[in-house]
């Protein structure tokens, strides 16, 4: 029972931290680009503002449009409750494994793309089309990264992967792990709409992906979507962090372990955020039709990861 409470709490922590993570990256980027930038907690203010506003819904939109923000937010929360954040998962962990996670995220994206089409706005359609393209192309990489991890652990379950990596630190530095990490990192950028795949801060019509889909959203709906997207980013970073370098994760529920877990979690997120921020200041956005090339690179990385894991074994 306590385990469930712990999971619930850590999920709430993640939900709470997510806007901050986005704000932190934005702040860091501004600093790196020589601007002052808004404070890292700026997103919290934005959310509060959005939740206070009135929502405007298109005449053409149906219930899909209004349901989507909740679906997106809900699946993000659900996924956050599954992945290892602060406390290490043990045994049969809540509802599913890595594949289930991926498909849950896909569920959110599915609805988001539908909502993009729902208003009849050309931008929405464009965004939906592009988003689905990118998501479809990232799937094999995700799956193969999972395989690379599962090869070591012998299972796609989170608890097995985490505990096996903890027991066998050498495996974490093996070529398979590193390649898989690289692949998953690229996927993270693509799935969460970061540069060089998508620019989270642009509203330039022809380059939008994520922003194009949510163009019609306003008020609390937009707030939920933004929040859900931030949570998705956090989840992906958490996955990258805890599956490949699970050290520091709380193995028991003692206060000290949990504290260490929380600290190490924040630290790992911070490190990855820095990486993203640095990357986003260094690279330009790719043309849409170059994105598949990037994704195929990530696929090859993941395949190499699997093969090298196999060969090393």
């Amino acid at each position, binding site marked *: 029972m306590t385990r469930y409470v712990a999971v619930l709490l850590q999920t709430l922590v993640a939900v709470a931290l997510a806007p901050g993570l986005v704000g932190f990256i934005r702040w860091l980027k501004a600093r790196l680009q020589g601007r002052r930038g808004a404070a890292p907690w700026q997103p919290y203010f934005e959310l509060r503002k959005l939740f206070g506003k009135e929502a405007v819904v298109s005449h053409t939109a149906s219930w899909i449009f209004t349901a989507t923000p909740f679906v997106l937010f809900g699946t993000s929360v659900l996924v956050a409750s599954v992945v290892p954040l602060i406390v290490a998962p043990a045994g049969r962990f809540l509802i599913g494994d890595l594949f289930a996670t991926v498909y849950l995220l896909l569920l959110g994206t599915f609805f988001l793309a539908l909502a993009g089409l729902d208003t009849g706005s050309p*931008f929405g359609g464009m965004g939906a089309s592009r988003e689905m393209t990118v998501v479809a192309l990232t799937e094999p990489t995700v799956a193969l990264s999972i395989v690379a991890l599962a090869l070591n652990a*012998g299972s796609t379950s989170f608890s097995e992967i985490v505990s096996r990596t903890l027991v066998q630190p050498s495996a974490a530095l093996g070529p398979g792990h590193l390649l898989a990490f690289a692949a998953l990192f690229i996927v993270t950028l693509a799935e969460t709409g970061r540069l060089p795949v998508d620019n989270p801060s642009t509203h330039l019509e022809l380059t939008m992906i994520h922003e194009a889909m949510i163009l019609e959203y306003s008020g609390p709906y937009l707030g939920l979507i933004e929040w859900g997207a931030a949570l998705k980013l956090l989840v992906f970073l958490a996955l990258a962090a805890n599956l490949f370098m699970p050290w520091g994760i709380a193995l028991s529920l003692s206060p000290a372990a949990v504290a260490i877990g929380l600290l190490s979690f924040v630290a790992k997120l911070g490190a990855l955020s820095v990486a993203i921020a640095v990357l986003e200041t260094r690279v330009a956005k790719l043309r849409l039709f170059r994105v598949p090339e990037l994704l195929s690179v990530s696929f090859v990385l993941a395949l190499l990861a699997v093969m090298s894991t196999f060969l090393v074994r």
Partner: protein
Amino acid sequence: MSFGTLGLIVMVIGYAAGASVSLLAPSDRAARVLTAIGAAVGGIGGSIAAASVLITRVPVETTFASLVSAAGGIAIRLDPLGAFFLLLVAIVGLPATVYGITYTGEYEGRHSLRLFGLMFNGFLLGMSLVPCAANVFTFLFAWELMAITSYFLVMTESQHAETRQAGLWYAVMTHFGFLVLLPMFLMMAPGGGATAFADLRTHAALMSGPARNVVFLLALVAFGSKAGLVPLHVWLPRAHPAAPSHVSALMSGVMIKLGVYGVLRVVVDFLGAGPAWWGGLVLAAGSISALTGVLYALADNDLKRLLAYSSVENVGVIFLGIGAGLVLHSYGLHALALVGFGAALLHTLNHACFKALLFLATGNLLHEAHTRNMERMGGLIKGMPQTAVLFLIGSAAAAALPPLNGFASEWMVFQALLSGVQIPQPDVAIGAPLAIGVLALTSGLAAACFVKAFGISFLAMPRSDGAARAREAHWSSRAVMGVLAAGCVGLGLAAPRIFDGLFRIAAGLSAAASSASPPAVGSLWLAAPNGVAQVSPLLIAAAAVLAIGVPMALVRLRGLEWRRADTWGCGRIQQTARMEYTSSAFAEPLRRVFSELYRPTEDLSINVHPDSRYFVRSITYTSAVVPWIERAFYDPVASGMRAFATQVRRLQGGSVHLYLLYLSGALMAALVAAWWFK
């Protein structure tokens, strides 16, 4: 008399009576009802028989040796595997039957509904008998009964040239499969003349390796052509759109699955699986089908053709499961192999459910919007809200989204493939991840595909008058669709329990693993073969309801102010349907990415003002996807055949002298042979 026998008798009588009585019906309306009554009785009988066999696990057997004794008589044996497929017929057949009552109403006076009733019931009877057959003749008989009747069902709307073309393709491909089937079975038959399946099984074990390989390849080709494996799938995207929608549902949901049945029956049951390359070949065929199917589905604007291609994709997924099972089996991992076969069966069931739902819903769409072209639909969610919800459920299931049924089976296929990675052979260890990658890509693309299918057809503004005027169909058709949608949800949530049963069915096929127990833990958890990775669709559903419901409730409690406004149109005031993203536009990015596969032909024609070319009157952009796989495989055959036929035609040149010369030549040849042979 057991329930099983009774059920079979009711089934045969029901279908046969439905066929004959509807042929003699006094009016079209009566024919519709009689067709349905016969089919319903038959379906209920079939499901009783199937259920009793599945529950008791005792096969039902009967033989009518006196019928066609020269070919071995008619023999029936319904074992659990057969019962599963028989149940499948009923699961899709009953809703399709009820749906058909109103759906065929529009044919009244235009097509012969009596003939339709005959063919419809004959089709159901053929499909029901295939899994019951216990000797070669009975099997082939049922198989062809199914093929012929479905050909005529496809030809129902024969006034369209496209339909006639489709019917031809269908007939040819199905007969091709049949002609491959024939030697396949006969090669397995022992020399003495016995063609009962039991004899085949015994004799297959004694056959030499190469002969077994030939049988396997023939089986894969024959059943693959029925199941729609690429490149033998060509009939599928033609015939399914041409057929009436509830027939498409049956064809896609059940008929092509009998190809899966055939492969399981022959390759796993009779041949007892084989070397690893068999599995590898099946995996390759599955991968190619899955990927090609979904990519063509994505590129298509015809909603029914999209669904047909999606069937190709799903058959590919099923064969991935079978292939994984075969590979594992060949390495002696019998219990793991059963996971592959079980996953294949599970996906068979799930696909039948959601594809039938989608086809039926599409039927209503066609009926209302009078077009299969998605680019002339749109906004249907307003006129047909319930159909929209049902279609959405089907789409989500087809996109393998949790917690619906498509997800459960794809997850199991993933796990079966993952088990392959553990085999210490480089080719397997590389092949299995590749298959996993393909499966993942397929599911991603399937999601994109069904976003398109649902989004373009149902959402935004209507693109044609028909779409604008669309209203809900008759309540009965919505009710059966509701049943199927409930099935999609229910099968998803209850997947662990169902998988358990399917695993046992698969275990019955293989002597080596008959005692293996399924890896599932309880009825809540779907477990991977190693038992560690687990997923619970039911808990996912519960958690998702919570995670979505709680924020919703919170926002509602806080009070949500909202108002309606126009969609932002870059400053343009009046939004029109022409501004919407179209189906082609939606698929455009992926079409570019996979341009090698699609090889689209593009044509841009700009009509300018005669005085100045800067005044553009209209721009027309057409892009057609050329299914080059079909061309690559079938054009050479067709042109070769025609070329040879042209040569043969020359023989009949008209001159009697030439003919007498042939005669004399033949005489000389025969005389030389007689002189030479001692």
